[in-house]
């Protein structure tokens, strides 16, 4: 395992949404701050910095992870996917995103990227979840605008169509 000292700035290289990128980071820098402020991927949002709200969820090697509970240096050499990876290069929404739009599953949109990434992971592992299973996974995210009904409907729609 790579060792870094406290005050040492190190170059962290990741594959972000299919592109190899690197930037400098202090060992204590959070992955969410690294993505947003070092790599400029501001689609990932920071809501609580203590792992409860889920807004900062990204995929690391395909697994949904709280980027506020991960240091940037832990992501060295890993494959990271964020909300910016979901739509096509022409901007076309993928089926999960489209289902969110169809079902008014977002209002302010701040919590949405984390929810999309959680369910990108989850639906890949369980493509036909029950409503109870969807609610269970969704309970790892806080949304203050929607009351969640539209989000559950959107995920059900995406799972039906996917």
């Amino acid at each position, binding site marked *: 395992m790579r060792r870094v000292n406290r005050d040492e700035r190190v170059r962290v290289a990741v594959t972000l949404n299919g592109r190899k990128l690197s930037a400098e980071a202090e060992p204590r820098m959070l992955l969410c701050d690294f993505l*947003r402020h070092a790599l400029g991927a501001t689609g990932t949002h920071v809501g609580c910095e203590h792992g409860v709200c889920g807004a900062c969820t990204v995929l690391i090697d395909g697994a949904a992870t709280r980027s506020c509970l991960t240091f940037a240096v832990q992501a060295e050499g890993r494959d990271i996917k964020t909300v*910016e990876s979901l739509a096509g290069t022409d901007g076309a*929404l993928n089926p999960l995103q489209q289902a969110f739009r169809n079902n008014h599953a977002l*209002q*302010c949109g701040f919590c949405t990227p984390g929810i999309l990434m959680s369910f990108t992971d989850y639906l890949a592992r369980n493509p036909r979840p029950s409503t109870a299973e969807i*609610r269970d996974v969704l*309970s790892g995210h806080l949304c*203050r605008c929607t*009351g969640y009904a539209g989000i559950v409907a959107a995920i059900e729609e995406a799972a039906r169509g996917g």
Partner: protein
Amino acid sequence: MTTSPVKPVLRKEDPALLSGRGRYADDLPVPVGTLHAHVIRSPHAHADILRIDATKALKHDGVWAVMTGEDIRKLSDPFMAAIKVPVQQWALAVERVRYVGEPVALVVAETRYLAEDAAELVAIDYKPLEAVIDPQAACQGSAPLLHPEAKTNEISVREFRYGDPASVFARADRRIAMTVPFPRLSFTPIECYVVVAQHNAAEGSYDVLANFQGPFSIHPVMARALRVAGPKLRLRIPPDSGGSFGIKLSIFPYIVLIALGARITGRPVKWVEDRIEHLVAASSGPNRITQIEAAVTGKGRILALKLDQLEDYGAFLRAPMPGPLYRMQGAVTGAYDIEHVELKNRVVLTNKMPASLIRGFGGPQLYLALERLIARVADELRLDPLDVIKRNLIPPQKFPYRTAAGALYDSGDYGRAVEIAIGEGRLEDLLRRRAAARTDGRIYGIGFAAVVEPAMSNMGYLSTLMTAQAREKAGPKNGAVSMARVNIDPLGAVTVTADVTVQGQSHETVLAEIVAKELGLPADEIEVVLELDTAKDQWSIAAGTYSSRFASGTAVAAHLAAVQMREKLKAIAAKQLNVLPEDVELAAGKIRSRSNPDNALPFGRIAATSHWSPVMLPEGMAPALSETAAWTPPELEPPASDDRINTSLTYGFIFDMCGVEIDPMTYQVRVDRYVSMHDAGRIMNPKIAEGQIRGAFAQGIAAALYEEFAYNEEGAFLTGTFADYLVPTAGEIPECEILHYESPSPFTPLGAKGLAEGNCMSTPACIANAITDALGVGEIVLPATPRRIHAAMQAAMQAARRVGARA
């Protein structure tokens, strides 16, 4: 029922927000050289600041400044407040701290990480003082004083008499009274506060980007604190904001603080609040203790109402407080036809974070008391609570209805809305569920709530807290301006700007629909740009997103601006099509003769005339490039000399009913079925309306069962993380069946009323009534946590035992 004028469409906002292309405050680029700030906060609820030593911190690499209350006092003035008492609030604590989390010093450094490191090197000595947390205790003469210069913590008391309540109470069949507390809570937007401030020393001006929500009546408050004229404080609001629910008004002290940081360092300064800071110090709804009493007939008809409302605003009174105490003033009788009211409004300060705007804004506090009283009346008179509600509802023939306290309810048929809600077997089903549950020995109850939901506040309502003579002296305050602008570019493309800030309410979508309809264009061809810049955009003190003013206000202004543009384009087209303006219509992307649709030109061709060929305009017409509408409804009159006040423009109606079951092992409340009937006038976009209602419902559930800012007796803050402050997740929010009944408002051209706050007002009351019905108890304190349910059940059992022992 009337039909909606606009069909639901997919939201314009969504593609960007779903793709990580939102532009929230922390996403936007900042100038090279921007510094970062960290706020040092008080660990004490009440203490004198003896000494702040920043020597070590200032030696730390990358640290530019450590600011304290002394710097703030030199460079700024205390914030103006609505009540003229010697309660001074500055952007940092001066000499004394008055709540846990109060900003004491600001560290400005080259990175946020460095600023937080340096903060640990700042030595602050405090001398702790006795704190007072309980609002009733704070009113006692022996209580420690928050602001000794004010000589009391109870800084405002006003009494109002509407009608002749004293004699009605004196001769009433029965007087039924109770005391109802409402808790402290916030709706914690997922995005916290963000401020980026720059100071231009050459111009003596500030340029600030912040996710402020309004009202813009706070702009002069900030400018005055910074000691500059309004135009020297340029405030820019980003295109996207991650929720607000009233909370992002209270960013304003930080806007001033960070602006002063920029002035002191000579560099741009950025501050992003973190969640821990947000929970401990951002903002809270005010807690209230209401003593409420009804004079009733034996049949449950309420003839007069008496309320003593003691509202706890925490350590300071932030503008525009005490808004929640007065926002419902006109509507204090709710949905009921009650002619006589005695009202006492009291403002108290305690050692808690300052309270301020929050969705519902005074409605939840009022209706919990009023609707609990209705249930109590039914209980004491052995009547059906639904019958008591129906017996007291304002009858439809009385609309528009002037309430005892002066509100002018625009439209409605409350009885009909209730009948629809309980119809189709819905009430029978609830009764059946309760009967079946009770037969099985389960704990089940039914609750009701009927509320009036005001929207678009009268800018004059707060002056009701002054006496008529004081109002006379201070000058008139009334009305509420809404503004929107429709612009045309050189190829005839249309953009819209408006006086709202965006936090997810779908304003872009709805404004595009409204303007598209008048101009005969597809809504997706209308660009709506809602980032707001006080230096260049249209705004008034009423601007911003609050008091559900969009549907009754800004939407109307956009409609009027579009109509102005449409009429000008008709006149221009008439000349070019060689027909009369009356014969011109805008439809299907064309401007054409109504009688001969083949005589047509593309919209863009006519619309661009004012750019390319202004000489061809009809004689005397100003170019049709940009049409601004400023709309203010005449119904929003100033308070009358007898203190009657029409607090809002439109008044929707909500009737809720629900069944809850209480688990005898875990003491958790499960909402079994919930029905919510809304009359919000004309619904502009059904899908968006549903989204707003579901969001408010979830927050109503949160207030009823989960969320509370808790302090111990010494004033320590106990709910400083999302593990202690319980925001409901998808697992906690029950299904809500939404029904609509549409009584268009006669006071707005679109007939729409606000609807986004109603369930914050009705749902806590409805759930509380269901819980007391389930437990057979007289009182329940919200949020009804398992601990409180357990306590209520124990008390009920002991009471039953005492009755048993006596028998």
